[in-house]
Each structure stands twice: as C-alpha cells, then as structure tokens.
C-alpha cells in the first residue's frame, strides 16, 4: 500500500503551460492579431479540451498537425477559405475538425470524413412562455460584418418570441462594441445609432448599456437570456457567448432544426452548458456545390472587383472573395 506523504507542494506555475500555449501560439500572425482586435471581445480565446481555434488569420498547417481534434470557431468566410485551400495532408484519417452545424454545406466531399459538427447547448432555453428575468443583447453590429437586414431580422425574431408584457418585465442589457468598419469591405464611418433605434423600436426604451468590464465582472447570469446578433460571417462560436453560457445564461429556443444531424457525443464544458457533437447525413442532403464553379462567378467577380479599392492594411481579407461567398450563399437562400 502506498503511504501518503503528510505534506504536499502546490505550484501554480504548472498552470502556466495552458496560458502560454494560448497566448504564445506560433500561429498568431499580424493578421490574426488585427482580426482579434477588430472583433474583440468576440474573438478572444477560451479554453476547452476540444481545442477551440480560430483560423481567420490564416491557419498555420504545421500547428494544425499537432492535435487530433480542433473545434473551428470560425464563420462562413474563413471556413470557405480553409476548405478551399487547406492541404489534404491534414486528413490523416484520425484528425477531426469540428465545424459549427450551421455550416454543413461548406464541406467538400473529400473533407466529409474528417469533419464533425458541433453546437453549444445551454441547460436552459427561453421562449414559448419561459421568460427570463434578464436579457443580455449583444453582437457584432457594423456594416461590414453584419448587414442591417440581418440585424432587423434577428431583432424582430427576438421580439416575436415574447409578448410585450414579458419584454417589459425583463431587465434588458445591451452591449454592442463598435470599431471602425475597415476589417472587410467599407472604410466609411458609420452611424451606429441606427442599431440602437431598432432595439428600442422592437423591444422597449428602458435598456441599460454597460461597459464590457462591468458585464465581465459578474459571475452570475442564471435566469438570463443571452441573445447574440451575429450573422456568423467571420466568427460563429464567440468567446462572449462562451462566457455567458458558462455563467448560467440560456439561449432562445431554436426553430426549424435540420434533422440530418445525429448526435454522437456530448461534452460538458461548463457547469451550465455542453458542446454537442454530430455526424451529418451528407448522402441524403443537397449535394455540395463549389461556389467557384458557379456560372455567375465571373459576373460577381466583375462587380466586386470594380467596387473594391486596393488596400494595404488588410489585403488578405479584403479580397472580393469574402463578399462573393456571402452573396453566393445568400442568393441560394442557404444562409
């Protein structure tokens, strides 16, 4: 029998490995840092054993070779780039890439065996008569990353989930950080009050607008609805959602769930929420379409190239491809 030592040493330096790994990743390029800045706090890093990772700054293939599982937090455009450009060496039969289930249509046939899908599932869903005490409304609101139409749709969907009386009874907190809209697309200044007007019009006038550090400092978001207005063009799995769900917030009940997903694993990543992992039935779904082989591609190319002045700062992302891909899937009503 092993005799237990009466004394033991505690040294937190061992926990430095995790923080070092996430802070000093060799893949953190200038582009990635720039994106993280423009998308802060949504694109901040968070930890889970599924290796959550953002490839929007350009994925370093040698880094991706190091682990067998990656949860790709990115949205439509970075994922489109990734599956268009990533070398097939990454598919060694063992490595799995987890992609948000909203983007099942982006996976080319050669990648389908290496990709599983995920979704974040809180312990509480609101709507259909279940009313939270508090609502945190946040998201990425600017002309380059989120269309005003998408914003309108999201806010009217939210308003429709509750009665006027229910909305009146909630404490509503809104947080919409705004950066100059020069990440992808336009350089113009933007009057962000148009978003505030939409919130007031669809919800109510009594809304609080605290700073991020105030929101971040509270550890208790139980009985709180977290509602993120995010088209998912760049980041889908945001660290802000991660923080709120970890502290007890719930989401709005989803409607029209696709049935082609089969849950194969559930992994708890906080006291209050899980990551669900799914397989997708590609055989009985719409066949994959390569957006670059579309008949309209040359036409789009012309329009977009004409409307896009050359930039120096962020040339990688300000290519016409991002705009094209978004318009392509929108035109087909897939997103």
């Amino acid at each position: 029998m092993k005799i237990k030592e009466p004394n033991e040493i505690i040294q937190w330096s061992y926990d430095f490995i995790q923080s070092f790994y996430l802070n000093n990743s060799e893949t953190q390029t200038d582009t990635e840092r720039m994106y993280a800045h423009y998308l802060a706090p949504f694109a901040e890093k968070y930890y889970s054993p599924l290796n959550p990772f953002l490839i929007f700054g350009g994925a370093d293939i040698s880094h991706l070779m190091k682990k067998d599982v990656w949860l790709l937090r990115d949205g439509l455009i970075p994922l489109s780039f990734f599956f268009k450009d990533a070398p097939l060496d990454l598919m060694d039969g063992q490595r799995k890439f987890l992609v948000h289930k909203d983007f099942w249509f982006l996976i080319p046939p050669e990648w389908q065996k290496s990709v599983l899908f995920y979704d974040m599932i809180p312990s509480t869903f609101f709507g259909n008569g279940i009313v939270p005490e508090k609502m945190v409304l946040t998201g990425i609101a600017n002309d380059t990353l989120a269309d005003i139409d998408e914003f309108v749709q999201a806010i009217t969907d939210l308003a429709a989930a509750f009665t006027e009386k229910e909305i009146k009874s909630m404490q509503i907190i809104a947080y919409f950080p705004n950066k100059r809209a020069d990440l992808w697309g336009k350089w113009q200044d933007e009057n962000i009050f148009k978003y505030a007007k939409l919130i007031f019009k669809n919800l109510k006038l009594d809304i609080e607008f605290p700073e991020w550090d105030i929101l971040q400092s509270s550890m208790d978001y139980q009985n709180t609805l977290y509602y993120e207005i995010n088209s998912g063009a760049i980041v889908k799995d945001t660290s802000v959602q991660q923080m709120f769900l970890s502290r007890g917030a719930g989401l709005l009940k989803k409607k029209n769930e696709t049935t082609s997903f089969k849950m194969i694993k559930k992994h708890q990543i906080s006291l209050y929420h899980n990551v669900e992992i799914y397989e997708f039935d590609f055989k009985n779904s719409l066949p994959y379409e390569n957006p670059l082989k579309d008949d309209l591609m040359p036409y789009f190319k012309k329009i977009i190239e004409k409307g896009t002045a050359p930039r120096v700062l962020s040339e990688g992302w300000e290519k016409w491809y991002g705009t094209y891909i978004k318009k392509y899937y929108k035109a087909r009503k897939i997103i």
Partner: protein
Amino acid sequence: MKRLLVIRSNKESSWGSCKVISPNLQECYRRLKGSTCDVRFFEIDKDFLREDALRDDIFIISLASEIKDFDPTELVFVDHVPHVVDLLNFLSIYIPIKDMPPFVFHVYGDFTFYSQSWSNISESLKGHSVKFIVASEAQEKMIKSFSNKDTCVERFLFPVDETEYYYDHDERVSTRQEAGVKDYEVVILYAGRISLQKNVEKLIKEYSEIFSTSTFPTKLWIVGAFDDFGAPFQGVLNHEGYMFSKIDQVINSLPENVAASIKFWGHQPKQVIRELNNASDMFMSLSLYHDEDFGMSPAEALACGVPTLLTDWGGYSSFVSKRWFCNLLPIKLTPFGHELMVSRVLDFYNLYSLSYINKIDRKRWSDEFLKEFSISAGTEKLKKIIEKDFEKFQGFNWSLEHFARVYWSVSHGKEINVHLTPSDDNIYFHVYKNYISGKET
C-alpha cells in the same frame, strides 16, 4: 464631537466578498451616529476615472464642497473602488492634502494590486494624520512590513450580518431533507470562487482520501462560480473555461462513487449559502489566494457554527479561537512552492468523527462567533478605533516601490514572473511570509 465624512461608492463592488463587506461596514458607521459622533455619507461614482471626465470633476468638486460644508474631523474611505489614491490625487487639486482632515483608510486585499498607487502617494501622506484599518493580523504584518514605522495601523475584522448568517437547526433538517442527505451522512462544504489559487482541486483530492477511509458516507458540496482569474502577478493567466476543465478532469479521474458524492451548486444567493452552511457538518478551504486578507466565506460558515478547517494563510488565521471550532492547516513556503500539511485534512475529519457534535454545540459556536464578528460587535470595536488618537504617517519604505515594480512587470501570460512565483527566496516570500501565522491549533 467627531464628525465623520464616510466616502463610499454609489454602486456595489463586482467582487463577491466586497458586495457583503462594504454594506456591513457602512452599517457599522451608520450605527456610530449619536451624541458623540456625527456621520455623513458621500457617494462617489464607482466608475470614477473610467467613463466621463466631466462627471468625475463634478463628483470631486461636490466632495470638496461637502468637506468645506461639513468640516469633518476625519475622512473615512470604506470602499476599494474607486481607489482612494485616485480620489485623493484629484481632490488635492481643490484642497491640498495638508489642509485635509485626517484620513481613515479601510484597506482591502487589493493593497498589493494597488501597490504602485500607494507607493506614489506615500510622500504626500507623510506627516499627515492617518489610520490604515486592516482586516486581519496577516494584513497588519504585511502593511507594517511596507511602512517606515510600525504606526498608523489598526485592526478591524469585517463583520458578518447576524440577521443573514446564524445557526438554525430547523433549517439544517429541512435543507438536508431537500438535498436527500441522511442524518448519518457527513457533508463537507466549500463556498467561494473556484479559481486557481483557491486550490479546490486539491480539496477534491483530499476529500477522495476521506471518502475511501471514512466509516460514514460522506459528501462534498462546492458552492460558487468557476473563475479563470489565475495568478496574474505570477504571469499565469487562465482563459475562460480552464478551471472547469481542470476540475472536470480531476472529477473524472476519481472512482465513480466518489465523483457521484461531489455536488457543484454554482453561484448561489446569500440565503441559500446560509441554508447550505447550516446543513453542512464541516467547512474546508485550502485557499492560498494572494489577496486573502480576510475570508468572508469562512466567516459566514463560522457564523453558522460550522466546524472549519482553513489554511494558515492571510486572514484565515484570525478566525482561530477556542470559543468555536476552527483549525488551521500549516503552510510553509519552500523553494518549490507552497507546502501544505495535507495530512491535517484527514486528521480534522477524524477529529470531527470522534466528537459528538450536536445542535447545542453548533448554536453555541455560532453565538460565540457572532459575539465577536456581528455588525453590533463590529460597531463597538469600530467606535474604539475611531476614538483613538491619530498618529502621523511616516511613509512607506523602499520595499513597497520595489514590490510594485516587480508586481507590474508581468508579461500577460507570456512568461513566468520568477520574482513572484511562490518560493522561499524571492520577493513573493518577503511579502507573503506575513500571510503565515505559524499558529498551532
């Protein structure tokens, strides 16, 4: 007649313990008001210096005119934010510090975090009448170690609201029933944040030992939110989700029956915390948190008469008394980190098992503790401190400036700060050796 102008924040602190400490402290000041003492409160914006410069200026001008109008015999600062040094720096634009009344500073655990600010204002405070009121013997030793002279420091342990925390046997019975705990089962409680320096994973591992050796069925209840604060002074910055994964890994490595006996309650309101304290049989905390100047959660447990085992660290050692059941687990700083005498965890549990603790004991311990730590008792203690004469502050010594520079040289998680890594031969040792009392219990 004394005239106290108490300066407080207009919003509650974001720190869980300060949300309780500050209102209780303010209540003590409110009760001081009487024939010998006039007390007036002045509210300052909690977000002072963070949002609107013009609004900040209006607050400071209003404070300056309040000082002129009320003519206080002393200025009392009861909150940790906005920080007193920032307030004084701005206030001194309108009233020079030498013309201000004496200061009473309630010092919180964040003294080390604000070491640079304290060091910067040291010269301006020299010769002024000052009282630094600290919340424990450990904090007193630490502040004195940074001071040129052992003066100006008073000790006032933060009070617990006796209307919120007390022993209630009926509540114990009903809470245990609701939680499905049998009479003969032993419940060990930890309440507080689940962050790196609180060493909850170590507690879980020690609990596992208890579970496998105990003749009684045992449960561990963990109440509080997961917090990825890490050990930033040391360069260890955790990301959201890290602590949960770390603890989850520990739980998954335990035998199934041990894991099933551990319950996480998450963040809970005060009333539920009292119910859980009443329902528990013992409270344990192995915290080595760097700003553990007091320990509100153990104080709340002791107010409910719970037998308590705490690390000999920071404010925890101030809770030791023969009038209630509180033992310490010895700590030593070694070249490799903190050394904990973990065998004491099982010893404490066995001591509990051998003692027949009944509701009369629990009630007596609770009453005895509250005789010393209630708001009523606190008001009397505070009165004595306020009546004491002021001493002239002689300034902080060189070591505070040195510490502040090292503390703020952290690299945001890119490298370890070796000077502040727990060890027995660096600045961490020189400052935090004051947190170890060496008391035998």
